[in-house]
């Protein structure tokens, strides 16, 4: 199958066209028009991207197989867990958020539940104290603040 490159090439071609078209609509900079405006370089780039995208669609490489759907969903969940960690770091605090996300990741990578919790808790506590006390970079305490 050579579908990956064709689809990706298609997407990149769309990006090239949209990007190049947007560039032509930049407002004329204060002080009048010069030989090279803010749009010159982007237009060059969109041409290069366009050409290589077309090449990719015409002569695609062999596909690297995608993971099965189940694995893709799992990867999606992992990505969401990292986003959740990013969101939680301030309201909930670094230590609980980090402990949760590290335990979860290491469990998903195949560690037993008990061991992943140990990894998560120790690493987050150690990193918190290392950063706050040794390196003096404040990380939010969140719920643990009182």
């Amino acid at each position, binding site marked *: 199958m050579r579908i990956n*490159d064709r689809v990706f090439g298609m997407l990149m071609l769309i990006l090239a066209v949209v990007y190049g078209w947007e560039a032509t609509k930049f407002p004329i900079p204060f002080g009048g028009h010069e030989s090279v405006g*803010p749009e010159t*370089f982007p237009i060059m780039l969109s041409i290069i*991207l366009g050409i290589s995208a077309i*090449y990719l669609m015409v002569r695609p490489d062999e596909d690297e197989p995608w993971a099965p759907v189940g694995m893709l969903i799992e990867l999606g969940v992992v990505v969401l867990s990292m986003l959740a960690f990013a969101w939680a770091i301030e309201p909930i605090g670094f230590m609980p958020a980090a402990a949760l996300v*590290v335990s979860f*990741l*290491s469990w*998903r990578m195949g560690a037993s539940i008990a061991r992943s919790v140990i990894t998560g808790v120790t690493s987050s506590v150690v990193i918190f104290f290392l*950063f706050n006390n040794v390196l003096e970079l404040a990380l939010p305490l969140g719920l643990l603040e009182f």
Partner: protein
Amino acid sequence: MDTMSLLMQGFAVALTPESIMFAVIGAILGTLIGALPGLGPANGVAILIPLAFSLGLSPTSSLILLTSVYAGAMYGGRISSILLNIPGDEPAMMTCLDGYPMAVKGKAAEALAISAIASFFGSFIATIGLVILAPILAKFALKFGPSEYFALFALAFATLGGITGKNQFKTLMAAAIGLMIATVGIDISTGVQRFTYNTLELFEGVDFIIAIVGLFAISELLFFLERHAGDGLKQVAINKLKLSPKDIIKVLPASFRGAVLGFVAGVLPGAGASLGSFISYTLEKRVSDKGEFGKGDPRGVAAPEAGNNGAASGALVPMLTLGVPGSGTTAVLLAMLISLNISPGPMLFQQNADLVWGVIAAMFVGNLVLLLLNIPMVGIFVKLLSIPPKYLMPVVTLIASVGIYSVSHSALDLYFMVGFGVLGYIFRKVDIPLVPIILGMLLGPEMEKSLRHALVLSDGDWGVLFNSGLSIGLWTVAILGLVLPIIIGPIVRAKMKRSKDTVKDS
């Protein structure tokens, strides 16, 4: 003689207790990073940049730290090549060929020691080469005008795929994507907003450090998950070291040849460390093979290791003197320089002479530290190597996120990091190389600036880009760099594969 006195001043900087401390820390971290499979040097340096940045280290200290990490990673790569038959990074591939058979024969400790000595030689000789060549190249580069610089940037992208690159159009595409990301934000010379869609966070553009960490570290985590590689691999047991001075003398010529070849390969655009170690190995095989290569000949360990480390130091020459990195890791080091507000290039040697020479001197110091560290303490690194990735990768991801978070204390940066991680995963799936993307983000602003300068000076005449002998020369090399791999690439790759296969069969 001028160079000597500058180098001595450099040693005055590099031998302060603070610098030595950073060199030691960097060497240890680097060896670890290089040794752990899946955490290549570019990745490791990328994770450490935001940390060095938010700790507020001085430019000299952070550069010493990160170049030591860089050198250490090259040392570390050999450990997993020898013990696991899995290269810690791509250049260490050739070390597998004779290193692993040596380890199987119960000579793991000797293989590790010989490769450490060869690495030391490789870096040492190449650093001397750097001392000699860099000032000359920097002086020469002062002649460059904006149109030459524009051609030079084009050359950097064209040759980035390297001789071994698979699909040149994918390299080109990746470069274009990176450059496009770099155009987001307020245009420096006109103040026009480009592709910001009035989002305040995008006015200053996309932070390349966040992009680098996302593209490398987060996508690596996703790949580990997908491959169920969490359990790690079985390694060969390590024996007691028995190494006589005679054994060392036997590998010295091999190390020397490897170092010189590696250095040349590192300096040349598009060659890089992988090719450096490959050429060193093949030459050594041709010169001194008596049927022992591929079955655990110590010289087959020494040559590629020296070549690989020589190339790593050689790659710093174009990065420091021209501001054009030739490899992924030097691109990440360039990111460090730019974020410290130091613009590399010929002026660096004049304006920041103490910094440059301090770093070069620190490379000598770091190299010695690495040698001392790697022979007696290799057992400790081997122990750490046996920690399965299922515990290690989540912690590394956490450290990477903390680094990004502490730069500006915003969760938004972390969202961006994860987003780039997903992008990196997709790019790697469709075989789009990541390094040109990063290089595009780094060089984009400078490249556009040189184009503008050139065209403003010539009043809009595009012919100015090709009007000097120098720029025509650069363009020629660029075009050759883009076209040659299409012809030669398959041959070289087949050769590399064949030499690997013959080892597997025997």
